[in-house]
């Protein structure tokens, strides 16, 4: 496994423009497959427009203690982009104004931002109903200073959503790095110990499943049952829900698809599994994504592709709910990832 980000390796796919070119060339340029916009037009679902803003997803920095093979953020220890307290304050002001009920913190490893705890405390004060932290789990055991995170999460009733691609060590480490499975198990036990993920507990612990390869996720409910059975039988670990997320063909996953000669087949699979019902509930219709430096995007994937919102309001400091609600959502062929099968979002399936 590569231990450096695409950016550090100066790989051409670290360039968002190059990724967008690839997604519009070849099978999409010669119309072997329809472009996403064409597909939406055929279904009378074009253009995509936002509904009520419910979730503010904030990427507090690309720094991470892991270098996962499929990471769409190209995160890693060598990424230095980090959100400042000033930008966090601007996000808090926006939350007060919009009444968005969910604050979804992601990264990188969000816990590595030096102002992470301050941000969570302030967010709970302004009355956000659901503060989510997308934790990679291993951060909890990575360093002494993070060992008390389960207690901190509990104190602020933070909703923890953690990644786990499989209930076996081999398949987990293959995607996320050597030793990740055992460290994740240890962290899950620590979370269970303070009450997270226990039946009827208000301390929510959900898992995210990403396929570890060039295939789409299977049935979410069946996977959840298999995960629950295996994790409880083998480790006595409990959790609430499993969200299955389709890997989108961008950044490191795109690099993997191309290098393993799976790109075309994968795009065929995504396009063939296109589900119009999933389009109605794609997460870009109720979410706004904010980058570490305060720019606004329709989703975290568009953020990584450098596709800012198509609006006169592009930055959190100029936030205007009215103006933003009139925008058209930016799309490209990666969007097929969110509309395949039962659909895919940061909250799991959508159809």
């Amino acid at each position: 496994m590569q231990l450096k980000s695409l950016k550090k390796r100066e790989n051409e796919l670290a360039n968002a423009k190059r990724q967008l070119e690839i997604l519009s060339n070849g099978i999409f340029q010669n119309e072997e497959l329809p472009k996403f916009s064409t597909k939406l037009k055929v279904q009378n679902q074009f253009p995509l427009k936002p509904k009520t803003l419910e979730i503010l997803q904030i990427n507090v920095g690309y720094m991470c203690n892991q270098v996962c093979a499929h990471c769409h953020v190209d995160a890693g220890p060598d990424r230095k982009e980090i959100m400042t307290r000033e930008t966090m304050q601007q996000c808090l002001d926006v939350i007060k104004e919009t009444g968005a009920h969910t604050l979804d913190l992601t990264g990188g490893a969000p816990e590595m931002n030096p102002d992470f705890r301050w941000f969570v405390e302030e967010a709970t004060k302004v009355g956000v109903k659901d503060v989510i932290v997308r934790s990679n789990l291993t951060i909890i055991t990575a360093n002494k200073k993070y060992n008390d995170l389960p207690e901190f999460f509990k104190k602020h009733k933070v909703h923890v959503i953690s990644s786990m691609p499989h209930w076996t060590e081999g398949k987990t480490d293959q995607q996320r790095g050597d030793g990740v499975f055992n460290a994740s198990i240890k962290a899950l036990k620590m979370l269970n110990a303070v009450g997270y993920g226990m039946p009827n507990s208000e301390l929510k612990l959900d898992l995210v499943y990403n396929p570890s390869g060039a295939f789409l996720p299977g049935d979410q409910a069946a996977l959840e049952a298999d995960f629950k059975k295996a994790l409880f039988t083998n480790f006595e670990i409990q959790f609430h829900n499993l969200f299955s997320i389709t890997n989108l063909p961008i950044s490191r996953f795109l690099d993997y698809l191309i290098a393993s000669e799976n790109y075309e087949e994968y795009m065929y699979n995504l396009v063939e599994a296109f589900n119009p019902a999933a389009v109605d509930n794609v997460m870009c219709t109720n979410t706004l994504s904010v980058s570490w430096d305060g720019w606004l995007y329709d989703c975290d994937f568009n953020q990584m592709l450098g596709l800012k919102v198509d609006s006169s309001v592009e930055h959190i400091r100029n936030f205007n709910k009215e103006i933003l609600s009139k925008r058209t959502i930016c799309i490209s062929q990666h969007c097929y990832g969110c509309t395949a099968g039962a659909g895919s979002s940061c909250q799991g399936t959508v159809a």
Partner: protein
Amino acid sequence: MFYMVIFMDFGEYEEFRRIFTSFKEYYKNSLKYINMSNTYYEPSDLRKFGNITEWNEELGEKFFDYYGSVFEEGALTAREKSLIALAVSHVVKCPYCIDAYTQDGLKRGITKEEMMEAVHAGAAIESGATLVHSVQMMNKYKKLSM
């Protein structure tokens, strides 16, 4: 080929080379014109499986309805059926089916250990089917021997 060339005089060699070159050209062009690779199995044909209904809609659709129902959750789980399908794919040596059910297994979180065990179950039945016929051989041998 070189063995043959040794026994040719120069004229014969020139003639041989002309025929050989034109055969090579002919072969290359024929491939180009019929636009096919020289293999019976084309991985991308799996995607076109559904097209069989174009030449017989009624039977094609009946088949796909049946196929869909078979693999639904029932007395056996869809996961168990996927592993059976993988084993049978190997026994009937269908490359399309092997591609399809390896991918299906991955989607369901089926591990490589489970997949390989399923293939062995199929292989054991297949070799057993051969070996059990040896009883017939033994019977016949005994019957014909004094």
